[in-house]
Every structure is written in structure tokens, then in C-alpha cells.
């Protein structure tokens, strides 16, 4: 028995070993860099092309790309298990500060200086987003913006001036009211807008999630409370149950049957990526867009920055070569080409001025918004993922009619504060 079993084991091990050892051939002095990304599909394809170009133009460095999309576990476990990549873009801006504060990433300021680059190449909001506690921990090659798209035809039909979209909260509320249509039983045929994201609306209303000067969590900031109260009032006025029932019949926004494309909603809170969708699925739609309006004392033209960022794990063993690649892939040329092919906007000021972006009004305006003074990244705290989840839970409860905004946010404050205080004690950075 044992012999047979050993034979079987041996055969399996041999086979697996033979198959498992798919190493790569490289010349003795070539540095092999492992680059992990969360991009898939078309974006991954463009990344592959860019990397091929980098490899050709940089003898001595060979970058190997691996798509690790689909789980939150791969990166932390790999880092914990000592199997880190050299460069990684499978990290979201939301996760950045958690990783940075725990010492998992290499600070990049020294490298930026040595390579003659500066964070000032990036838009101010993005610049702030890439830094944590006075150090730079990431670079980025893409940016995004936010605005509200509106159906000009519907506006005109409802007596609103399609060339003068809402500029204040009151005008927004009025536009929503006027474009809403109900049938005889009170169910929706069309509604004005579904505002979303307490995270951004809090900033619109002058609130903030973190006070950097004093290093304090400010979940219960009056501006945040005002925003949540406004959202709660909105969903009470428009009866969220009726809205959700109506929304259940929406087609996907990745098909010509998307609600905004077919006039089921007059407005749509979205970002510049909508432009590509509309071009593909509803090319004849007569639409416009306007930045998020603010109440008096609030912030105009708010944008919530996020997306993938590029980091260099602390355990990277070829830091100079890794930064060579990092700097190139988040450089003017690569960013410009990548963004052009995937219809994003570059976060680099110079690349963003390129004619292929500036000649498209939507992109041009998106760039202006993303580069504006009210473009924010996530709150720069290590506990941001948990904070974000708590904010969402509070929002979910409030708009479904449960709880008072002030109390809900106080609860968020309490829970996050506790986690935050403790995180500080163990922080490396």
C-alpha cells in the first residue's frame, strides 16, 4: 500500500513540479519586475501594450504583468506571506492610507526627487490624495470627475431652460420636481434625479470627514448632518419605496435601455465615463451636464476622486528599477495614451492639456472639474475603508426613513473614532 501511494505521490509531485516551474527566461543582468493590476478586459490589454513598449525601451528591466482582479484577499495575503509584487495597481485609493500607515508601502518622495519629478505635475486634488501624513505613497495614471447629466429635451418640455441647468440646490430641487411624472395611481413614469453618495454630498454641504489640522474624525460635522438631512428629505419627498419599485424596471446602463437614455430619469448623477456610454448606447440623446450645485456656504463643483493608484510595496527588492517603471507608467506619455484608449482623463496637468482631451468638451470640462479646488480624495485616515462602510450604512438607514441624521452620524463618529484612535497607536507612518 505505502509503495503504491508513494508512487502515486511521486508521480503527482513530478507532474505538478514540471508544470509548476514555469519560470521565465531572462538574461543574467536583467531585472524582472512583477507588476500586479486589477484592470481587466480592454484596460488590461492597453496596459499590456504599454508594458511591451516599456520593456522594449528599457533594456535591463523586464516588467511582467499579472491580472489579480476579483478578490480583496490576494494583495494583503501576498504581502503578509512575503510574496509581494514590485509594483501594484490593484490598490484602490480607498485602501491606500490603510496600507501606507501600516508600513506596507515605500514612500516615494526621495525617488521623485531623484528622478527629477514632482507631485506638482499632478492635479492638486490628486496630489493630496496620493499623500499620507506628509509623505507620498502612490502615483496615479487616471483621474475622474463628477457631474449631473441632464436630458435637454425633457428640460425643454417641462419649461426649464436647457441652456441654463441648475446652479443652486433650490434650482436642482425645482428641476427634479418639474421633470417628475407620475401616473394616475401615483407611480412613477419618470423622476428627476436620484442623488447619491453621502461621501460627496457632505462635502458639497460644507462638511468634512476628517480635520487634518487637529487630526480628528469629524463624522458628525454639521455640514455632514445637513447633507444627510437633505438626502433624507429628498427620499421622503419622493418616497423611496416608489422610487425603488420604479427603478427595479430599469434596464442596464450598459445597454441602450439604460434609464437615463430612455428618459426614465431626467437627470443622472455620474461622471465623465457616462460620455462613452451615451456615445455607444444612446448616440442620439440630446443631453448636457452640470457640476454638482451647492447650497449657500457650501462647496461648488465638488468631485470625489478615487480609482486605482500605483504603489511600490515596501518589500520590493528592486526599488530603483521599480520606480523607473512606476514613473514611466504614471508619466505624461503613458498616462496620455492609456486615458485616451480607455476614455478616462489624465491626472497629470500637462497630459490633460493634450488636444485629444481638450478637443472634446466633455473631457475638457471633466478635466477642469477634476483639477479644481473642490476635488477631494478619500479622508486621509488609515481606517478609511471601515469609515466608508459606516457612512454608507448611515446613509442607507437614513434614506430608508430610519433614524435622525445627527444621531446616525454621531454613532458613526463613535465607532470610527474608537477604531481610529487605536490605529494611531500601531501606525508605522
Amino acid at each position: 500500500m505505502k509503495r503504491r501511494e508513494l508512487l502515486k505521490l511521486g508521480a503527482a509531485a513530478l507532474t505538478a513540479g514540471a508544470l509548476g516551474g514555469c519560470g521565465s527566461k531572462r538574461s543574467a543582468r536583467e531585472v524582472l519586475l512583477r507588476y500586479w493590476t486589477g484592470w481587466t478586459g480592454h484596460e488590461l490589454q492597453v496596459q499590456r501594450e504599454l508594458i511591451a513598449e516599456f520593456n522594449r525601451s528599457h533594456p535591463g528591466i523586464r516588467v511582467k504583468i499579472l491580472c489579480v482582479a476579483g478578490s480583496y484577499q490576494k494583495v494583503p495575503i501576498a504581502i503578509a506571506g512575503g510574496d509581494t509584487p514590485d509594483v501594484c495597481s490593484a490598490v484602490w485609493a480607498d485602501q491606500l492610507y490603510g496600507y501606507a500607515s501600516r508600513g506596507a508601502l515605500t514612500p516615494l518622495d526621495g525617488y521623485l526627487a531623484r528622478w527629477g519629478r514632482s507631485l506638482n505635475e499632478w492635479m492638486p486634488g490628486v496630489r493630496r490624495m496620493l499623500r499620507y501624513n506628509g509623505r507620498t505613497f502612490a502615483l496615479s495614471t487616471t483621474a475622474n470627475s463628477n457631474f449631473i447629466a441632464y436630458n435637454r429635451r425633457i428640460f425643454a418640455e417641462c419649461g426649464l431652460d436647457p441652456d441654463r441647468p441648475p446652479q443652486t440646490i433650490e434650482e436642482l430641487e425645482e428641476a427634479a420636481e418639474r421633470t417628475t411624472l407620475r401616473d394616475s395611481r401615483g407611480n412613477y413614469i419618470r423622476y428627476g434625479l436620484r442623488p447619491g453618495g453621502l461621501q460627496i454630498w457632505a462635502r458639497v454641504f460644507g462638511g468634512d470627514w476628517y480635520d487634518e489640522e487637529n487630526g480628528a474624525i469629524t463624522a458628525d460635522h454639521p455640514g455632514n448632518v445637513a447633507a444627510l438631512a437633505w438626502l433624507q428629505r429628498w427620499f421622503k419627498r419622493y418616497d423611496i419605496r416608489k422610487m425603488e419599485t420604479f427603478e427595479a424596471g430599469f434596464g442596464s446602463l450598459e445597454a441602450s435601455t439604460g434609464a437615463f437614455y430612455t428618459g426614465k430619469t431626467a437627470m443622472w448623477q455620474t461622471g465623465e465615463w457616462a460620455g462613452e456610454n451615451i456615445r455607444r448606447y444612446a448616440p442620439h440623446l440630446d443631453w448636457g451636464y452640470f457640476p454638482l450645485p451647492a447650497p449657500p456656504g457650501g462647496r461648488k463643483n465638488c468631485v470625489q476622486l478615487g480609482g486605482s493608484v500605483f504603489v511600490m510595496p515596501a518589500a520590493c527588492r528592486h526599488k530603483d528599477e521599480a520606480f523607473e517603471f512606476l514613473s514611466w507608467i504614471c508619466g505624461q506619455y503613458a498616462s496620455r495614451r492609456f486615458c485616451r484608449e480607455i476614455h478616462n482623463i489624465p491626472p497629470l496637468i500637462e497630459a490633460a492639456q493634450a488636444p485629444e482631451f481638450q478637443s472634446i468638451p466633455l473631457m475638457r470640462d471633466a478635466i477642469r472639474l477634476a483639477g479644481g479646488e473642490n476635488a477631494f480624495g478619500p479622508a486621509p485616515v488609515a481606517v478609511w475603508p471601515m469609515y466608508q462602510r459606516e457612512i454608507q450604512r448611515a446613509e442607507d438607514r437614513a434614506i430608508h426613513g430610519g433614524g435622525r441624521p445627527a444621531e446616525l452620524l454621531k454613532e458613526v463618529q463613535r465607532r470610527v473614532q474608537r477604531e481610529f484612535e487605536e490605529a494611531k497607536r500601531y501606525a508605522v507612518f
Partner: protein
Amino acid sequence: MKTPRWKVWAGHATLLVLSAAALLPFVWMVGTSLKADAEVFSPRLEFLPSRPVWENYPRALAYIPFARYALNTLIVAVFSAAGVTLASSLVAYSFSRLKWPGRDAVFFLLLSTLMLPAQVTMLPVFVVFKTLGWVGTFKPLIVPSFFGSAFFIFLLRQFFMTIPQELSDAARMDGAGELDIWRRVMLPLSRPALTTVALFTFMGAWNDFLGPLMYLNDDTMYTLSLGLQQFVTQHGAQWNLLMAASVVMTLPIILLWFLGQRTFVQGVTLTGVKG
């Protein structure tokens, strides 16, 4: 003993109705796989496309290196199935037919290894494989199979315990050793159970996503489930192509079960043993 007529009709009727319900998911998968890009989410939620787009299949299969991923997945799945079936049946024999001091305690220990959520053991398991130098190979996905799987050891133990003791005793009296009894008495009488174990293991390995993601660092070694991720992007998914690829992925399993269930024949060999 023939089944009465009314039972036959009632049986068929019930089965047909339930079959329709059971097939819903699969019909939807196939239907969606044949839809044109624009049709995937029509507001009225149709099951079937207005006009089948057969090109989705070649498109899906060309979108990722399907053949290579399928081969990788096949290797992992076949070896896993073989390893688990062999090892688990050996270990199950020990827990069911052999009496030894501490047996039941060890059995409960075995069972308890299933009670700790994999989320937390995932990390130290990775460390073990890293220490062994197996990360980046197929080894973590295949080698542990040859040490048995608690789930299937438990299953086979239950089946072995239903085989009458006299059969083993008779063989023992004929001078057979334990290994012979295992091979000549237990295994032949457990064909349905062994088929089940092999099939389930194959299927588990075939569809496994986290294991390959965790341990493979070269996308030429990727498996089909990792390949399916390519159809899902940050802005949404190519549902029709994803479904097409998924349909092709499930076909081998369906085939295996269809063939394997032939071993599910009522055991006639348990007759004729008088006590």
C-alpha cells in the same frame, strides 16, 4: 414488482414540472449567452434572445486563452479528484471499519478542522506553502488532495459503515489483510459514493477561484475561473460573453455526471448474506 401506472404518470408529471423550474438558471445562462450586446438587459427581462447570436461563443473563447486555461484546469481537477478519492477512501476505512484506541476523538478532530472559517486560515496556509516554496506552482492546488479531505472522509465513512460487517469478517477468515478487504470488499460496494467523491472534487477544483488566484503568479498557468474574471471590468461586465464562457465551462461537469451516474445502480451484491 412493477410500479403501478398511476405512479408512473404522477412521477413523470411532477418531475417535468420541477425540471422546468430547475432548468431556469441554465436556460437563462444559455439564453443570455446568445443575446446581442444591446439586448442583455432588456427592461422586460426576456429569457431568450430575439435572434440567437452564435458568434458570441467563438468571441468568448477567443477573448481569453481558453484552451490553455482549460488544460490547466483539467490537470488540477483530475489530479485533485484522483488524490482525494484514493486518500479519503483509505482514511475513511480506518474510521469506519477498524477499531483502535482514540479513533473517535481523532475523528472529531478531523471534523472540527472544517469548522474554522477558511478566511482566517487562508493566511497561515499561504505561509506554509510559501515556506515549502510552492507558491507560483500548481502544487498547493494538487498535493494536499493526496492527503485526503475531511469532508469526503466523513462521507465515505458513513457509506462504509452501511456495509455489513460479515462481508469483511468472511474475507478476514479467508486470510485477507486489511488492505485486501479495503480493495476487494469496500471499494467495489461503494461505487456510487466513490463516484460522488470524484465528481464533487473534480467540480470543486474545476470551479475553484480563490485557490488559483492565491497561488498562481503566472497567467500562463491560470485556470478557467480566473479567466472568467476578464469579462468583468470596473464599469460592468460583458454578460453575454461571460455566460457563453460559463456555459462551455459547465459542459464537462454535466457530461461527467451524466456518465458517472450509471454507477448509481441499486446494490444487488448485498443480498444473499444470511445471518
